[in-house]
């Protein structure tokens, strides 16, 4: 991942090397996880569904944005903002499509069936992505090309900084959406008691479509930003890189608490980057992911409601 680069480790103060770099890199990486986690939390909160396809909706959105950016397939060569808009619409469209074709027919099915169905959607999307884009990585759309911060020891790209800001803003906005708006309350109402919700005149179907549309949008934002920090996108890429950490972030933050996805994401990013910096590769290869799994297990055992979650 190239969002944060160590430029000249030899010249650095040991303290800076050990703390500042992993903190900054963990913050950025964690924000990406948090962004993806936000969509997971939204769907869990609204329907008790863990959506295996969430990251891949992001991949698809990033792929379509890249198509439009490069003028591939049906697209002419379009300017970056238009390409990004196409990516976002792809996410919304996919969210709506999955809801209509998979979720709604399974309304009264056991949740486990629905979750397995989302895993099916994931596999389908990966296959379809391979068909449309081929297996080769494609360069992702870059919103910004510059550096936000560059010192002798640390480099933060503009995209990296943007990710942190976007996550913070979206976490706050979505929390406000649930606590302040009629539609947000309707989504919570459906999740707690669908029959009563119908009886007061709220359309459960429309609410479900809306929720998945928003989740698709959140997935698209996460996908476009994450592939921007990685530099490339290919079928399965975001699922591979970020689904498990995003899930960990969501669980850590308390799977129904939206600001929790932010906190959880940042904590996950930090744990991962501290482990990577401090545990040498020859001692424990892939230490970042291993430590993350340990942390996830610990949270599930010790505080299943997460850091900010409430048991409901």
């Amino acid at each position, binding site marked *: 991942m190239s969002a944060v680069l160590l430029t000249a480790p030899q010249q650095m103060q040991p303290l800076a090397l050990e703390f500042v770099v992993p903190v900054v890199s963990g913050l950025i990486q964690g924000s990406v996880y948090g962004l993806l986690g936000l969509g997971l939390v939204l769907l869990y909160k609204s329907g008790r569904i863990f959506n295996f396809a969430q990251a891949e909706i992001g991949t698809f959105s990033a792929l379509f944005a890249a198509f439009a950016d490069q003028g591939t397939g049906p697209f002419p060569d379009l300017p970056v903002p238009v390409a990004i808009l196409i990516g976002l619409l792809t996410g919304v469209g996919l969210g709506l499509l999955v809801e209509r074709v998979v979720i709604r027919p399974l309304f009264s099915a056991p949740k486990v069936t629905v979750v397995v169905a989302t895993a099916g959607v994931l596999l389908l999307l990966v296959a379809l992505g391979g068909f449309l884009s081929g297996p080769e990585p494609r360069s992702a759309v870059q919103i910004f090309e510059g550096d936000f911060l560059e010192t002798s020891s640390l480099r933060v790209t503009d995209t990296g900084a943007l990710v942190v800001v976007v996550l913070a803003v979206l976490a706050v906005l979505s929390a406000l959406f649930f606590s302040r708006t009629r539609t947000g309350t309707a989504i919570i109402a459906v999740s*707690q008691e669908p029959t009563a919700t119908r*009886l007061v*005149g709220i*359309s459960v179907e429309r609410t479900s479509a809306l929720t998945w549309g928003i989740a698709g949008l959140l997935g698209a934002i996460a996908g476009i930003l994450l592939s921007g920090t990685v530099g490339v996108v290919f079928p399965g890429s975001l699922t591979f890189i970020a689904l498990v950490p995003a899930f960990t972030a969501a669980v850590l933050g308390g799977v129904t608490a939206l600001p929790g996805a932010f906190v959880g994401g940042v904590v996950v990013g930090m744990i991962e980057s501290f482990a990577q910096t401090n545990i040498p590769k020859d001692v424990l290869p892939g230490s970042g992911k291993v430590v993350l799994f340990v942390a996830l297990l610990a949270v599930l055992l010790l505080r299943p409601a997460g850091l900010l979650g409430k048991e409901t």
Partner: protein
Amino acid sequence: MSLLEVEELRTGYGALPVLQGISFNVEEGQTAVIFGLNGAGKTTTVNCLAGVLPTWSGEVRFDGKRISGKDAPGIVKAGIALSPEGRRVWPGLSVLKNLELGAWVRKDQKAIGETVEQVFGYFPRLEERKDQMAGTLSGGEQQMLAIGRAIMCKPRLLMIDEASLGLSPKLAQTVFQVVSQINDDGTTVIIVEQNVGVLPYADQALIMEKGALTFDGRGEELERSGELRKTYLGEAAAE
């Protein structure tokens, strides 16, 4: 013309028919009580009227207009509210939020505060607990909340399924008295009950058995005919 006209209503679950074509009318301003043993089809009836269950055949008219075939939101908008069996409040939302959601279809959102006050007038207990999560209320309080929520949309017809189930006889009487007050304030009421304690409040009494109506008459008539009482309510009354 009656406020509610039900004609040869049939419905069921999947391929299983439950209502065998029932017909009855309810006059504006009255309280009708539907009695019947467990499994008689009372809940199926009110759920079908409320649009949560599809109508297979037959027709329902409300204020002269056909409403059968409308979905639940359409029925609420037409002016019929149901307080469903099993209470079904939103456990993770406050009492106040539960009430406010009841007014979802109202166009005059600014005025719902007045209706909240009215509900608190009927059920002072709810006002004391207005910021409490509904899931932490007692069974009786949840029943009050479910009824309160149903009147938040200012329905012309209020249906209550099993108002007294699981309540102490004293609490059940309190609930019946409030319902009678709601009725006096101008709302037509249908109550589904197994508790004969509601009989004094019934203008009209209906008895259901195996998906069909076996009695439709004045409340006093049913009260006088001890025979009916023994046949249809004996077991339920003893509970």
